């Protein structure tokens, strides 16, 4: 029995650096792909800091078992967006998960093979920062399946691009195709006077893409409306269709879909 057999594409969302917006970008891409009519799944393997359930405001649902394994949590009745996260398996999703490597590796193995995803167009895998047990475990377990590749998220500043550069080397060494780099929190436009301040710098992600010969997927601005939307678990794509952030995310999702379907 292969729970990933009917999943058309598997995409990892990586960074190396913490706090650059992996979970936010994963969520927004999932919502954008859903709006484009795709069936999407998100596997959240950030065991210490699972953010996805909160960002999609699914609350504290019970996870049910079926013959094929765990039934994923759906965000809607139409089952267009499926999720699995450790947050759903804990008594209190806000509890600390203080586990050493081997225990994390074991659970991730289960997450990869024992979730009954059914038919999906795209499965996005949200990862924690770093290059450790979780990343090795997910790649090991996905070996039997086709992994289309990874999207790397960075903010433009030097401490971020430095870490993401290491992650790019990791991808090259493990044979993981880099689908492209996203530069997040790229410039902030004051809501009052529209003056743009590059709080976290600008262009660093694009430069990194050039330096390493990777595809640059695009920049997403630092947008308090997006932060607030994520905070409240709302669908940003539905709420703010006219914002520059919306165009940036939609454009990235189109580029991603094209490159998945072309390969």
């Amino acid at each position, binding site marked *: 029995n292969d729970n990933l057999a009917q999943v058309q594409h598997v995409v990892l969302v990586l960074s190396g650096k913490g706090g650059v917006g992996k979970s936010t970008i994963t969520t927004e891409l999932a919502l954008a792909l859903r709006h484009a009519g795709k069936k999407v799944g998100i596997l959240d393997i950030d065991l210490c800091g699972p953010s996805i359930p909160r960002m999609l405001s699914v609350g504290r649902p019970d996870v049910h078992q079926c013959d094929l394994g765990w039934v994923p949590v759906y965000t809607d009745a139409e089952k267009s967006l499926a999720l699995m996260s450790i947050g759903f398996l804990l008594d209190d999703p806000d509890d600390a998960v203080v586990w050493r490597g081997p225990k994390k590796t074991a659970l991730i193995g289960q997450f990869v093979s024992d979730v009954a995803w059914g038919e999906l167009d795209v499965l996005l895998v949200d990862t924690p920062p*770093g290059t450790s047990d979780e990343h090795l475990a997910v790649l090991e377990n996905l070996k039997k399946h086709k992994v289309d590749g990874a999207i790397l998220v960075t903010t433009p500043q030097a*401490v971020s691009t430095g870490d993401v550069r290491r992650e790019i080397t990791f991808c090259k060494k493990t044979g993981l195709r880099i689908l492209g780099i996203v530069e997040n929190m790229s410039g902030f436009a004051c809501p009052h006077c529209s003056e743009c301040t590059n709080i976290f710098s600008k262009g660093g992600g694009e430069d990194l893409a050039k330096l390493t010969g990777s595809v640059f997927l695009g920049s997403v601005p630092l947008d308090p409306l997006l932060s607030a939307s994520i905070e409240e678990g709302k669908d940003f794509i539905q709420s703010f269709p006219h914002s520059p952030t919306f165009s940036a995310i939609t454009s990235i999702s189109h580029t991603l879909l094209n490159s998945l379907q072309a390969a």
Partner: protein
Amino acid sequence: HYKQRKFKALQERQRQQMARGLPKQKPITGVKQVIVVASGKGGVGKSTTAVNLALGLTAVNPSKSVGVLDADVHGPSIPKLMNLKGNPELTDNNLMIPLTNYGIPCMSMGFLVDDAAPIVWRGLMVMSAIEKLLRQVNWGSLDYLVVDMPPGTGDVQLSISQNIPVAGAVIVSTPQDIALLDARRGAEMFKKVNVPVLGLVQNMSVFQCPNCHHQTHIFGSDGARRLAETLGVHFLGDIPLHLNIREMSDRGQPVVVSSPDSPEAEAYKKVAAAVVRRLEEVST
């Protein structure tokens, strides 16, 4: 009565066996107090805060000697932030000599590996590396060792708290709920391993537009302050989101030394002063 005594004896034997299993806490030679800077959440500014806290501690009391240990093995940021590069030299007894800038000796995995090389290590290897960074460094005599922790609540956090006595933990968070949830997990973890939580720092609290001075709470408002109240931990201070902090960080010139009279530097010095007060409180 006999059964009770036997059961108590069994419990005591089990307790002793389990105590033998855990590593014994051994202080780092020459280091008086270890302060860990942690968060749970990535990207909230642990490293930036750790570096400016270390410099703030010397600014607040110039007679104190302070060092920085970068325990983020996968994403070591300290070399960049402190403008330090190069492989550490060894003493005659094979201890690594820390690299020093702005009067602060530092050690980081970043000094031991190539800039572009990923450090793809599982927990066990990470623990072994942390052990080396803790014990095989010639720290000399330090009043404070500030340890910049990686994000998460796993091997590194457990290893450090089990292997060395930690005077206190400073938890950094941004005001967003998503960061606070992780900060709460971080605080809970420290309670589990009996490390005193000195308090919470609210980083990236507010942004003031340099053009029109309008204030935007990009990452939410006051969440960390409220969390501190809920958890019953102290609130150590706010650090604003300021272009200068990031620009100077990228240049490896922490604001506390490069713009010592700026409001940002003052904010860090205030946190340093609060940390010193709290250390005195928890040690009595």
